[in-house]
């Protein structure tokens, strides 16, 4: 049955119907094509029978059945489709699947290399038990250069940028191992904590490809970091189950294999998992909703409530903040968490959307965190002379200032946006522009502190 001349409005109607149908996740493009063929045939038959195209379209759509019911039937028959989106093997769409597979092979190869790198110092007589300091200090070097390499390869980075990245890693490698830091000393502990933060910037430059200069490129990196963290935690959980299970069955056979875990499985797995997790995030970024912003949404009200209660308690009881040893660290952590909540809410927010209640909540959280931190800072600054400048205290104080500046100006920009005097893009831009400051401060702690405070 040949269809008569299809008019333009009818084509538009069919197009709309098709796009409605295509939105159902259980109905794939091939099914839409099959159903569309049916619809057109039906319309053709009805118009031949004397209906106008409009009427024919309505009748044909009605006969096809309600879309909800239809997609429910498809979902029942193809329930795997709703889940398949969570798994990487996509059967439709040839080229992307091949890309994903190729990336996967490269990522796994790099993960194996990372695992081997972890064991490499062993060949030169370093032992994971006795040279803990060496391993802790150099841990990022087993993984980050490979991760950077992965993105250099994937994004096809310019040679000039690659040279800068290599230079960055080489210099960091020298600095990290140059100073004769006392194992277990404060300065070394700080260096161990801060080196990954500084080096993460290099990974970011590679990740962003040529877009590091742009807000969007850096924001993508922020998203990537959040998702990577979540995937890594999930893989670590799986690894924990695997380890526990392996230990149990070998125990049953009367074999103790703890040495294997400590020397091989855990360190090699931890290194390789970073790259595998990075690949997963890359492959899935468009497939499922990002988790980090969801978590940010859940925890923003909760943190706001906690800080509110805390400040309320201070006011009611008339207590000041007791400057015990770790209190500044606690407030640093608070600011980091607030920054994370802000960053991931910002990263997922539609820049064009008008201010809403969640923005108000976000500002409340920001302001409360700033007030809490100001109280803590004031208490510390007032008594810093008494305590003296130890490396830990200076590091904590410096971090606090860096975070405070970031959050305070964010609060200003956010308020401006809510009042309609500024754009949301300005806030986003500020957040992303500020990112290198963290890396620079971290680099300073690694490279500068031993010079200032000695090697203890």
């Amino acid at each position, binding site marked *: 049955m040949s*269809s008569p001349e299809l008019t333009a409005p009818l084509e538009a109607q069919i197009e709309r119907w098709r796009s409605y149908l295509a939105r159902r996740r259980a109905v794939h493009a091939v099914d839409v094509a099959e159903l569309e063929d049916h619809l057109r045939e039906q319309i053709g038959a009805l118009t031949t029978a004397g209906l106008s195209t409009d009427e024919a379209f309505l009748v044909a759509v009605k006969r096809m059945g309600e879309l909800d019911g239809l997609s429910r039937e498809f979902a029942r028959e193809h329930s795997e489709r709703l889940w398949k989106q969570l798994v990487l093997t996509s059967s439709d769409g040839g080229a992307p699947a091949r890309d994903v597979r190729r990336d996967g092979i490269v990522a796994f190869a790099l993960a194996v290399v990372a695992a081997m790198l972890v064991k490499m110092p062993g060949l030169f007589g370093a032992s994971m038990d006795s040279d803990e300091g060496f391993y802790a200090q150099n841990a990022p070097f087993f993984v980050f250069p490979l991760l950077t390499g992965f993105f250099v390869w994937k994004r096809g980075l310019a040679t000039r940028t690659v040279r800068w990245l290599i230079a960055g890693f080489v210099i960091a490698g020298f600095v990290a191992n140059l100073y004769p830091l006392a194992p277990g000393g404060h300065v070394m502990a700080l260096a161990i904590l801060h080196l990954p933060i500084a080096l993460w910037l290099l990974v970011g430059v590679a990740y962003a490809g040529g877009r590091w200069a742009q807000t969007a490129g850096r924001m993508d990196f922020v998203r990537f970091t959040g998702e990577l963290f979540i995937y890594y935690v999930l893989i670590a959980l799986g690894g924990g189950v695997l380890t526990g299970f392996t230990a149990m069955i070998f125990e049953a056979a009367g074999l103790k294999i703890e040495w294997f875990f400590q020397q091989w499985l855990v360190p090699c797995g931890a290194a390789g998992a970073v790259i595998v997790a990075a690949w997963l995030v890359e492959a899935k970024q468009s497939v499922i909703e990002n988790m980090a912003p969801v978590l940010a949404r859940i925890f923003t009200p909760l943190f706001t409530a906690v800080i509110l209660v805390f400040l309320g308690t201070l006011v009611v009881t008339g207590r000041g903040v007791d400057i015990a040893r770790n209190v500044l660290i606690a407030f640093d952590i608070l600011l980091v968490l607030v920054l994370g909540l802000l960053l991931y809410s910002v990263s997922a927010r539609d820049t064009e959307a008008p201010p809403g209640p969640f923005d108000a909540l976000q500002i409340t959280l920001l302001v409360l965190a700033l007030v809490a931190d100001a109280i803590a800072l004031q208490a510390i600054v007032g008594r810093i002379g008494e305590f003296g400048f130890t490396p830990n205290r200076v590091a904590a104080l410096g971090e606090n200032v860096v975070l405070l500046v970031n959050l305070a100006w964010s609060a200003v920009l956010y308020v401006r946006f809510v009042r309609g005097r500024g754009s949301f893009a300005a806030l986003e831009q500020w957040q992303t522009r500020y990112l290198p400051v963290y890396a620079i401060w971290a680099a300073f702690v690694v490279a500068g502190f031993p010079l200032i405070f000695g090697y203890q």
Partner: protein
Amino acid sequence: MDISKDLIAASSTPLVLAILAEEDSYGYAIIKRVRELSGGHIEWTDGMLYPVLHRLERLGYIKARWGVAETGRQRKYYRLTATGRSQLEKEQAQWHAVTATLRGIWGTTRFLTAGPLFAGA
């Protein structure tokens, strides 16, 4: 006369298999054929045929292939497989048994609604 949903659902498999046993076909033509065969008594919601076809394909009774219709459009044709043919025979045997049973009982008790079965209660 409206045939109940359950009955339509139950008869869909043998109907589709039987139609495809006649010749290879596609969704719209299958529905048209069902309408002709049933004298209009069996009315399917058109879209619902496709999940059924996909299920039969998954079970291996039929096989799909994309072809080009005389209108030049892409069209998905279905063909009965050997497994489908033996399944059709099984279905036929089952339906024969069911209809024979019903005919047997309806031959002896003529009045379903007159209530001779329940009158004594």
